[in-house]
């Protein structure tokens, strides 16, 4: 079974997360700065993304499942197109969306979440934000499990087809889940206090940016600037 987060290991995994974060950011900026007529630039940027994904050795299936959330948006755009929207806008929005999401998938596949957070902290992203992300990552699964347990308990006492009338029950269930989450948050805070937490969130960081990081980052950004500039009409 492939790991939910880390489908593969490659030389990219070992790089400093800041390098990959900045590469991602530069790539997104490059994609967003293209104009509707710049099809050649799109092709080149797509090619670059394919190379990046190939270098990260991301399995195709893993990649495709992560793309599925984009499909509804493309569908929505397609409906707009049928209702008389402009083809150019549709093409532009779709291409940009797919490329940006692709880059985000590349980032998440090459960088463990803990390192990503560390990178964000070192790039001076506000602590409140990184701490929130950190807790979200840790407790999302706990929350999902808790919700699943409650839902199983509910279904075993209500073993019939759910109708709209049952919506109130779902509402109560959600309320109960919120209360549980609130209580858990309280207990987590106590656990943090017990370990000397005083308001400042201290973490360890083992990542260093070395020559390879800087060289790759410079080369990558240079390439992006070249692509965007070369195909500007």
């Amino acid at each position: 079974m492939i790991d939910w987060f880390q489908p593969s290991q490659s030389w990219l995994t070992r790089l400093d997360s800041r390098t990959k974060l900045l590469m991602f950011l530069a790539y997104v900026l490059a994609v967003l700065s293209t104009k509707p007529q710049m099809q050649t630039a799109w092709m080149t940027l797509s090619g670059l993304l394919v190379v990046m994904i190939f270098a990260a050795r991301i399995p195709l299936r893993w990649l495709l499942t992560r793309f599925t959330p984009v499909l509804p948006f493309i569908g929505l755009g397609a409906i707009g197109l049928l209702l008389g929207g402009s083809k150019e806008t549709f093409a532009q929005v779709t291409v940009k969306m797919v490329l940006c999401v692709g880059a985000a998938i590349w980032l998440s596949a090459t960088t463990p979440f803990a390192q990503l957070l560390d990178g964000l902290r070192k790039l001076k992203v506000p602590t409140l934000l990184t701490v929130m992300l950190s807790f979200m990552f840790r407790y999302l699964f706990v929350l999902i499990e808790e919700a699943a347990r409650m839902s199983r308990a509910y279904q075993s006492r209500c073993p019939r087809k759910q109708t709209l009338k049952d919506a109130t029950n779902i509402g109560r269930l959600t309320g109960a889940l919120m209360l549980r989450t609130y209580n858990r948050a309280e207990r987590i805070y106590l656990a943090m206090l017990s370990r000397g937490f005083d308001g400042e969130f201290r973490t360890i960081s083992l990542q260093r940016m070395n020559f390879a990081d800087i060289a790759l980052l410079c080369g990558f950004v240079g390439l992006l600037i070249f692509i965007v500039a070369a195909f500007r009409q």
Partner: protein
Amino acid sequence: MQEAIRVEDLHYRYPDGTWALKGISLKIAEGESVAIVGPNGAGKTTLLLHLNGILSGEGKVFVFGEEVTKRNLLKVRQLVGFVFQDPDDQLFMPTVLEDVAFGPLNLGFSQDEAIKRAIDALDKVGMTHALNRSPHQLSFGERKRVAIATVLAMQPKVLVLDEPTANLDPRSRRQLISLLNQLSVTKVVATHDLDAALRLCERVVVMDGGQVVADGDAQSILSDANLMEAHGLEVPPSLAALQTHP
């Protein structure tokens, strides 16, 4: 023997008005292992939460001779490590190493020293292989051991454990009991698992209704069928078997 913890006439009332503790007095010497037993709602957890200054009621709590006040909380929390019942409450960082290093970093240690302490602590509980894993990838028993490591990394002199064996399968429970027995620190264990209390502690304190109702040698307290019965407990099967077949 030096005194590790002294509780003097401790009262605590929850915000909703119910009294959880009604005059608890207790002395625990350094190196002792004490089990706190009693029915649900007896006030066991509430008492434990006073030992490292998380709750503060009326009355006094001394840790190694020093009264717990707002000013010495960091020191008290370093001396008295608290292991919560649910490891999901205790492990809140994205990776095991970061989580175990959290305490030492808060105590002001450098990153290198914090990592060294974290790895030592994980080694003690046999979890060094999980350094870079995320807690949700671990089994419940493994999470429990890492939760203990997070506290050991702070090198406390007293280990306070709330229901350490709850929800563990028999093998993990056995491993946990032998792990705790290997640790030479003072231990205060609140538990419903009376057999574990017998294996872990030489002294048992029975609580009911926010008061201490009995305090003494584990063997004699736990084998007192009338006392156990009166406070919603029972003689652990291992002792009961001894009584019927002397």
